[in-house]
């Protein structure tokens, strides 16, 4: 059999051109895909969305200058059953999902410093850590090992994923020691306390609202997202979709970047070739600077942009005096679990769901935060909340 190669080539070419035509004009938008602004049901919970947006305006309870001890609308639970006579001998165990990104690295350093402070004060004893390197199975066996050893007087868990880790967390609860879960959640409320900042919806809404407020109607906005399918990131996008849907902004599309600077710069450059981009919405700040450089290299004005409280972005923001906002996924939450552990060992009440404040960095606060963090590396997070810990600043500077 001999198919003329011209036919094959023609068919391949035709297929490409046809697929081009079919993807070119979805719901009648003339320009780009005009990103779909209806959030996917799987990732959007109207009730939770409303709750998080409302929580942003609620005054949290707790000491004013220690946000890591503040809680929004806490429901206090009794922990006297776990009160320890000798907290300085109590072992705190921590099963960490991973330290696989700068945000987690920064947080973990803060946690270690907090542990040191508490140990010196005799409020906790030994601190044991296992790191699962983002592997669910590894974390399940890590938790099992903590339970089997019987050494732990408190178990802190930062789950790697929600559904898979739920039974492991339940196992830890059944062993009778107090369990503290933070960052990502699990589908059980057996833990004594679940610590987390307000959440992804509030984060995505902060940045989307800023763009809506600072751009003229009809302005073209590009959305840059890291990955699909990660709940905290999907919630940010779902919130932004909801807010953009009610606005007059033209969302020209969204792209997945894996937070890789080279990809971000390439994607932004390509969008710039085909028309102005007035605003850039990002679900996290990784690579924001590379995206802004694409504007520089194309000789265009900087867009209105939302990044994150990552220092590389905040420094660029200050240098170039951008119109920008840095939404925050509060990094200081890494202090709270160890503090909660010491509270439980003292038999003090802790909030059942410990919702920490999550306040975006605005221009008013930017310079002050950069001053505090002046010696920190560029992938450090401004709201890390460790300024008053004994190791500051060397522990974070020399990582």
């Amino acid at each position, binding site marked *: 059999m001999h198919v003329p190669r011209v036919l094959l080539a023609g068919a*391949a070419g035709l297929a490409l051109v046809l697929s081009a035509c079919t993807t070119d004009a979805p719901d009648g938008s003339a320009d780009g895909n005009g990103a779909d602004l209806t959030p996917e049901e799987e990732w959007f919970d109207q009730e939770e969305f409303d709750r998080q947006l409302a929580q942003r305006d609620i005054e949290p309870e707790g000491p004013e200058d220690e946000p890591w001890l503040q809680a929004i609308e806490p429901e206090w639970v009794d922990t006297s059953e776990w009160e320890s006579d000798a907290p300085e001998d109590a072992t705190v165990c921590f099963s960490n999902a991973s330290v696989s990104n700068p945000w987690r690295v920064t947080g973990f350093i803060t946690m270690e410093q907090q542990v040191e402070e508490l140990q010196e004060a005799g409020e906790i004893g030994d601190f044991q850590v296992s790191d699962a390197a983002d592997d669910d199975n590894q974390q399940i066996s890590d938790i099992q090992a903590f339970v089997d050893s019987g050494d732990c007087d408190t178990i802190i868990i930062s789950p790697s994923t929600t559904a898979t880790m739920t039974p492991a967390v339940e196992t830890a609860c059944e062993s009778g020691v107090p369990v503290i879960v933070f960052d990502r959640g699990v589908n059980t409320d057996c833990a004594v306390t679940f610590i987390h900042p307000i959440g992804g919806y509030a984060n995505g809404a902060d940045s989307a609202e800023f763009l809506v407020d600072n751009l003229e109607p009809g302005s073209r906005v590009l959305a840059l997202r890291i990955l699909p399918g990660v709940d905290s990131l999907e919630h940010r996008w779902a919130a932004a979709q909801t807010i953009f849907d009610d606005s007059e902004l033209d969302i020209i599309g969204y792209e997945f970047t894996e937070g890789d600077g080279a990809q971000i710069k390439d994607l932004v450059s390509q969008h710039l070739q085909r028309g102005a981009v007035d605003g850039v919405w990002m679900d996290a700040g990784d690579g924001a600077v590379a995206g802004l450089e694409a504007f520089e290299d194309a000789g265009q004005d900087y867009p209105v942009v939302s990044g994150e409280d990552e220092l590389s972005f905040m420094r660029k923001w200050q240098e170039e005096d951008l119109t920008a906002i840095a939404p925050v996924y509060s990094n200081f939450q890494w202090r709270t679990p160890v503090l909660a552990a010491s509270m439980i060992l003292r038999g003090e009440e802790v909030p059942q769901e410990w919702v920490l404040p999550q306040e975006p960095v605005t221009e008013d606060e930017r310079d002050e935060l950069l001053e505090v963090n002046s010696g920190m590396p560029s992938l450090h997070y401004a709201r890390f909340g460790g300024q008053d810990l004994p190791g500051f600043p060397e522990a974070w500077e020399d990582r």
Partner: protein
Amino acid sequence: MSTDRTGPKHAGPRRGPWSFLSGGTGTVALLLVVVFAVIATQNPSFFEGPPLMSFARMAAPLVLLAVGQYFVIVSGEFDLSVGSLVGAQVVVAARLIDGDEAMTLPVMGLMVAFGLVVGLFNGLVTTVLKVPSIITTLGTMLILFGAVRYWTGGAPTGALSESFRLPGRGGIEGVPYLGQLPYALIIAAVAAAAAVWLMRSPYGRCLMAVGDNDVAAAFSGVRVWRVRTAAFVLSGLMASVAAVLIGGFSGVTAQVGEGLEFTAITAVVLGGVLLGGGRGTVVAAVLGALSLEALFTLFTQLYLPATIQPTVQGLIIIAAVAYASRRGDLRLPERLRRRTGPPTERPLGTSRR
């Protein structure tokens, strides 16, 4: 019945207007043209100077990595360590330079030296210790990845200097029509030309022979281990230069370099270079890199949902390679195939006579 009687026109290599496309280069050149054509329908301004130059700047590091990978693949081996190597180089450079212009050249020198050492290590472990290269370089990939993670604690520190970023970001200004001629394009073009020259030199012919049949090559006097080790060293060198360009292009992020080894291998395979060695040209590998980068660009231009992009990319790659092997780009040359022909031609017929 016999296949060699079908007519004289199939007996020898085709000589026609398309003959320059033979040897693996044809399919990938065709793919590149088709992809460019579709891009042009989506974005007619793509072929005006500046957008094309920005495409070239983006594609340059991949071209370098593909050339480096070509040397290794054509010698019958793999180099999986290049992605990690690029990541390590950029992160190490940022930490050592830390914004200090005076450190730029020494650090660039150090990067090249480091790339050569890693290549030498890969080569010697593969050839002298006889560890399969896929394992050697997988090991190197993990070693570098882990070492960088350990050294930086997972978060790169420091900053690259402006002059370090120049090769990847800057260019010669004021070129007519093009606007700015990126240094990255010049570097990639020089590297590709040097690679073509090298493949025509005695070393290149030895490399090809080793990839085709290392036993035969050894019998004819080629020092196989030296030739292969040199291929790994070249790959390390190319990765170092690519690291300078990538770091220059986009600065330091924690993810820099991730997955580049597979992109580079894909580019080479797309160029019709035979995995297992011994077949394929540098030009085809370069065209493969350009086609792959053009595909990425096309996906963006089409606003193809980002989630489906890897699937489409995979389909196109399989289709292109299948098409290339159908039309014979990847088959043995005619003169080699004919040798096995006669004995199998009429075995039954002759015995009955």
